């Protein structure tokens, strides 16, 4: 079972809900195809990650650039789900984004921190003036104790 789904969305928060819900649906599809017992945590993780990354893409939009779209790609594989988000924003380096000091309860900066927590791998690379965020999460049919 391998499916590919690609969405192109305008960089506008009006489409945030659509992006996140698509993430949730892709996750649900991938999880139920493999017979995962507890889908809600998995689905929520992907929905949250897509919501955060899409928000980032919209927020860091360069005002002067001509119209472009955020591309969201879901790769639904037998053992994992891959989410790729591509935007044309200025370069950003994942490792240079500091983790929030959770003990100080800051008011923002939790976004990528959450993504790293809920997804198994997160990488960012720069290619042809695009930031390409690749996230994967493994589907475990049942982690029986």
């Amino acid at each position, binding site marked *: 079972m391998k499916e590919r789904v690609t969405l192109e969305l305008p960089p506008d*928060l*009006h489409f*945030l*809900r659509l992006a*996140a819900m698509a993430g949730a649906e892709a996750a649900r599809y991938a999880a139920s195809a493999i017979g995962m017992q507890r889908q*809600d*945590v998995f689905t*929520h993780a992907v*929905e*949250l990650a897509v*919501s*955060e990354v899409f*928000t980032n893409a*919209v*927020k860091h939009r360069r005002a002067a650039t001509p119209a472009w779209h955020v591309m969201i790609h879901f790769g639904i594989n037998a053992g994992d789900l891959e989410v790729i988000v591509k935007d044309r924003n200025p370069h950003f380096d994942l490792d240079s984004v500091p983790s*929030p000091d*959770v*003990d100080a*309860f*800051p*008011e*923002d900066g*939790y*976004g990528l*921190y*959450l993504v790293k*927590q*809920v997804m198994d791998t997160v990488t960012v690379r720069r290619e042809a003036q695009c930031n390409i965020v690749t996230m994967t999460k493994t589907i475990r049919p049942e982690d029986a104790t």
Partner: protein
Amino acid sequence: MQIDQQVMKNIFVFMPRGRLDAASAPLLRERLAAGDGGNMVLDFSAVDFMDSSGLGALVAGARRLRAQHGDIKLACIADTVRRVLELTRADRLFDIYDDPEAAISRFAPEKSV
């Protein structure tokens, strides 16, 4: 997003409905800032999703109120919201009730003293 608001026993009770994300968080931020200090209860029974933007609004609201000797208590959070609070350890910042009434009555006697 829509935010219902009522006052019970002198406590502001806000009830946001829908998703708390970057699209709706500014509205919550604004409403929380409009309250004149004091205490608030946020009834989350109609919120099924919250991301870091929503969380940011909550933390900002709580900080502002606490600076004015007020507080925010949360009620009826969904599992999805609970997980975000836990992952960011923000669950240490809020009292979380499973019943808005209990949250209100917890504030009320303190007010009368």
